[in-house]
């Protein structure tokens, strides 16, 4: 649900990074936080366990600029990837305007990717969303690791529709902003149509 505030002259959109545990969702957000100008970002909030696993969510607000005099702000959230945090994932998807699925390219994480993508479909449906019309980007992360599967094979496993696919190495920032720009473009185009 995009929030348009005429009094504050702001448009606020919510983007959720989804995917299996240890896939790089938080790393994406941390990179964006690190590389974004101080005046264009808010506080990075991480609700994590003592071992730095996401417990509830990470949250980073960023601001891109103005459209028709309205500041465009994007609230970036990650979900906890571990399977047993499903109730939290469902809550975080509420009000979402766009989803980035961060897949782990390693062969040994193939089942975890597929399970998480299925879980995303279920949780979107349970929240009343239609994936066919929701802005959605697939990020293939960890492309630098030796066990990375070919892009075609990952795409065959994980593509949920004709979504854009971005290759990434989030620890080095590769593909992180490409992914962000792609989902933002989709969200704004979607807003125009709505």
């Amino acid at each position: 649900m995009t929030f348009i505030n005429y009094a504050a002259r702001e448009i606020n959109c919510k983007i959720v990074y989804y995917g299996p545990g240890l896939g790089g969702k938080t790393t994406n957000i941390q990179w964006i936080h690190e590389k974004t100008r101080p005046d264009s970002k808010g506080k990075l909030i991480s609700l994590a366990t003592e071992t730095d696993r996401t417990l509830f969510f990470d949250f980073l607000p960023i601001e891109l600029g103005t459209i028709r005099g309205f500041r465009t702000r994007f609230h970036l959230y990650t979900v906890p990837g571990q399977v047993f945090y499903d109730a939290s994932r469902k809550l975080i998807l509420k009000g979402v305007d766009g989803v980035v699925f961060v897949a782990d390219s390693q062969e040994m994480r193939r089942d975890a990717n597929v399970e998480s993508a299925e879980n995303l479909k279920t949780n979107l449906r349970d929240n009343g969303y239609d994936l066919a019309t929701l802005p959605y980007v697939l990020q293939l992360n960890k492309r630098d690791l030796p066990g990375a599967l070919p892009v075609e094979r990952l795409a065959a496993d994980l593509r949920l529709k004709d979504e854009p696919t971005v290759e990434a190495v989030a620890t080095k920032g590769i593909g992180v902003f490409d992914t962000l720009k792609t989902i933002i473009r989709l969200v704004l185009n979607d807003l125009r149509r709505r």
Partner: protein
Amino acid sequence: MPRTNLVILEQDYERFIAMLEQLCTNANARFVFLLDKNGQHIASSGDLVSVDPTALASLAAGSVAATEGLAGLVGDQEFSTLFHEGRSDSLHLSTVADKAILVVSFDERSSLGLVRLRVSQATPALANVVTEVVRRSDAPRAEALAVTPLGDLTDADIDRLFG
């Protein structure tokens, strides 16, 4: 209807501010803060100088969402009020018209009893405006377009955002 926009017009904002200012005074609160359930800051009043409103909105929404999840687990529809007691500052959170969250921050100059009373007195009027805003935002496209700045957004507008 999740794929709609929530649109706050200036007149809505002014009405919210008037009600929040009154509540802040009546409850002897540090600040009062209204957000939507998805974590978007709508309006606030009082001393927010040392508070990041975006972060507060996100965390308050997460807290209420998690508590509602808990309520569902134990068979209740919702726990409509949350209270966090600190050493000097406390937070009272309550839902408004099932769409918004009202946060009241207070210290030793007030009390939980007073805050609860003032919140219960202020909530019906706040709920009326929230309901009106939601109803308008859910209206058919033609009506919604009349109040959105994005209906005629162009590719060039989007390109400009990325410099």
